[in-house]
């Protein structure tokens, strides 16, 4: 205690009471969450402003005679003629591992009632994306635990993969399942004391969603034990448009901390369609000129500067990565609308979900033909590449042949075999929600189907076969599964073991 008193006395002795001129402003107009402020001659773009009554604003538009300010908080307390003070700080949010397991708002303030955020570092919300020289090629996989994605549309750490589809087609489910899969992998590596495994932390940014939906997602994450590795940043529909506009940038700042500190992070922007709408609202009330569909001219730059912040950086620059999964909601399957085409062109691929497939019972309802991953295959595990390399082509062939066979004509044996194989693969890809599958199981199953071990299984019984085969593998071939993970490729010895396991199972399967 004496040391503490001495320390305080020393700091008091060193402290100088100085007053300095500071620029202030006066609120001239206020409404729709936006204020016009006169004065503030030395204000910076995106500087945080103290509007009084504990309300913060952001200087978003610096004009000749006044400053356009977006208000974060309750603007009903503010009055015309009130003083506005600059803070000299750009908008920043707390960052670090102290945020894991927490639900926060756009300013990084807790919403979960679990006390203060344990963080002494803050990052600016707007930051330039890492440049060319800071980046490294993408070579490490993100295991989503969703077989259709891991096999055919693999995602790498540092990639931007768009998830696009109509309403209620399972976009959020894919994101949540990916988060759950990371949590399971992180927890398993921790339990096994595997220091070589790089944990992947997740940030879920909810933009313009219903509070009930966000609450449901949080409860799913909690039930599946994913919250300790996840940050939820909520800017629900009830929040101001300004809050919704800034939320993904705040999430990106939180993710960048992991990237710059040797960790890997994954950020989900759910969704950028609502984000574009929020930005359009802010721009219109700020009286900025509007363009196509009334979006402002810089709506492309809005998303490109956000998504460019996802990267895998070199060892000198943090040796981490930030993977982005932006979500876009289409209207009646129209991927050629303004915002979807913008985001498609920015990202490194897209997972397209089709309503028709969803209602036919395919879950996840991924359209194989329209989905692509431009960089992820370089990061795919070699064993997965060996079993899934030809899968996309085979499925495309299957769809063509299946369409042809609907005319009821006689088919030759080879064509019929291709159709039967395709049906079984599609059945395998059907996966219940919130139940990600480990990659070694995926490899074993795909190997079995590619080598004809499911050819005699009737299609309606494929799921039953899968369940029992997985039980068989985990119960009696645990070593084999471990080898698939550690060796990461299928050599002759592993193939022989897989053959033995599949044959022994098929002998008892009926």
């Amino acid at each position: 205690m004496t040391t503490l008193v001495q320390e305080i006395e020393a700091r008091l002795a060193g402290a100088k009471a100085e007053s300095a001129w500071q620029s202030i402003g006066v609120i001239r107009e206020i409404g729709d969450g936006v204020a016009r402020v006169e004065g503030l001659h030395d204000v910076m773009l995106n500087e945080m402003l103290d509007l009084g009554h504990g309300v913060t604003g952001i200087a978003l538009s610096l004009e000749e005679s006044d400053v356009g300010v977006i208000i974060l908080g309750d603007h009903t307390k503010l009055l015309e003629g009130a003083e506005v003070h600059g803070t000299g700080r750009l908008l920043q949010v707390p960052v670090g591992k102290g945020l894991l397991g927490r639900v926060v708002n756009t300013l990084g303030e807790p919403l979960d009632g679990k006390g203060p955020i344990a963080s002494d570092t803050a990052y600016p919300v707007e930051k330039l994306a890492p440049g060319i020289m800071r980046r490294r090629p993408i070579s490490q996989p993100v295991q989503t635990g969703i077989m259709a994605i891991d096999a055919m549309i693999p995602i790498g750490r540092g990639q931007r993969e768009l998830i696009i589809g109509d309403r209620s087609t399972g976009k959020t489910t894919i994101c949540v399942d990916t988060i759950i899969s990371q949590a399971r992998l992180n927890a398993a590596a921790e339990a096994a004391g595997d220091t070589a495994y790089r944990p992947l932390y997740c940030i879920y940014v909810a933009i313009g969603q219903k509070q009930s939906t966000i609450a449901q997602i949080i409860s799913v994450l909690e039930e599946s034990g994913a919250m300790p590795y996840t940050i939820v940043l909520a800017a629900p529909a009830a929040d101001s448009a300004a809050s919704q506009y800034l939320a993904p940038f705040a999430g990106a700042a939180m993710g960048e901390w992991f990237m710059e500190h040797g960790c890997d992070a994954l950020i989900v922007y759910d969704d950028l369609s609502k984000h574009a709408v929020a930005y359009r609202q802010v721009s219109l009330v700020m009286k900025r000129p509007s363009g196509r569909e009334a979006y402002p001219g810089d709506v492309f730059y809005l998303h490109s500067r956000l998504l460019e912040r996802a990267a895998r950086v070199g060892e000198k620059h943090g040796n981490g990565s930030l993977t982005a999964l932006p979500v876009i909601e289409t209207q009646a399957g129209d991927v050629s609308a303004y915002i979807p085409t913008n985001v498609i062109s920015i990202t490194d691929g897209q997972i397209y979900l089709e309503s028709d497939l969803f209602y036919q019972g395919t879950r996840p309802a991924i359209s194989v033909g329209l989905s692509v991953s431009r960089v992820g295959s370089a990061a795919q595990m070699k064993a997965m590449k060996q079993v899934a390399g030809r899968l996309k082509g085979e499925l495309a062939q299957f769809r063509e042949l299946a369409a042809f066979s609907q005319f009821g004509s006689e088919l030759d044996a080879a064509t019929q075999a291709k159709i039967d194989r395709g049906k079984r693969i599609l059945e395998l890809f059907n996966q219940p929600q919130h139940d990600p599958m480990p990659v070694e199981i995926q490899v074993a199953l795909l190997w079995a189907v590619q080598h004809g071990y499911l050819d005699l299984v009737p299609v309606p019984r494929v799921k039953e076969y899968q369940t029992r085969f997985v039980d068989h593998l985990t119960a009696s071939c645990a070593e084999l599964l471990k080898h698939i993970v550690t060796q990461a490729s299928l050599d002759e010895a592993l193939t022989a073991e897989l053959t033995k396991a599949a044959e022994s199972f098929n002998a008892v399967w009926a």
Partner: protein
Amino acid sequence: MTSAREIHRDAARLWRLSLAGGAPDAARIRQITDQLIGSPHYRRLAVLAEYVRRLRRDAADRTATVDSATLLDAPARAAVEAGLARRYGRTMATTFRIDPDLIGGVRLVAASDLLDDSVAGRLTALERPFDWAQGRSA
């Protein structure tokens, strides 16, 4: 349809015509105002409103308010006025007021600048970081 930009442009042009030697000239302002009011142009009122806004802002830029806990004596007032004239390069219309809530010291607002050397101001400045921290823990 008249854009806000055109109104701003016209008001700025009229405002420049109102200045004589860098300062607004009362005779020119009256003449411009009379001509605007008498003009048949449909956007004259919008331009006049913007013109008056610029006039008001210029007047605010030439005004200073000094609040103090106790009444400042004549030499102190003169020193403040001289200091303001030196800082802004022109004579500022200065108003002196008494505000006991300041507890001690002075609070000076000139143009869009603030110099808060009052006890209350310093206490508020001390409180601000704590408010920020409390906001985080809400």
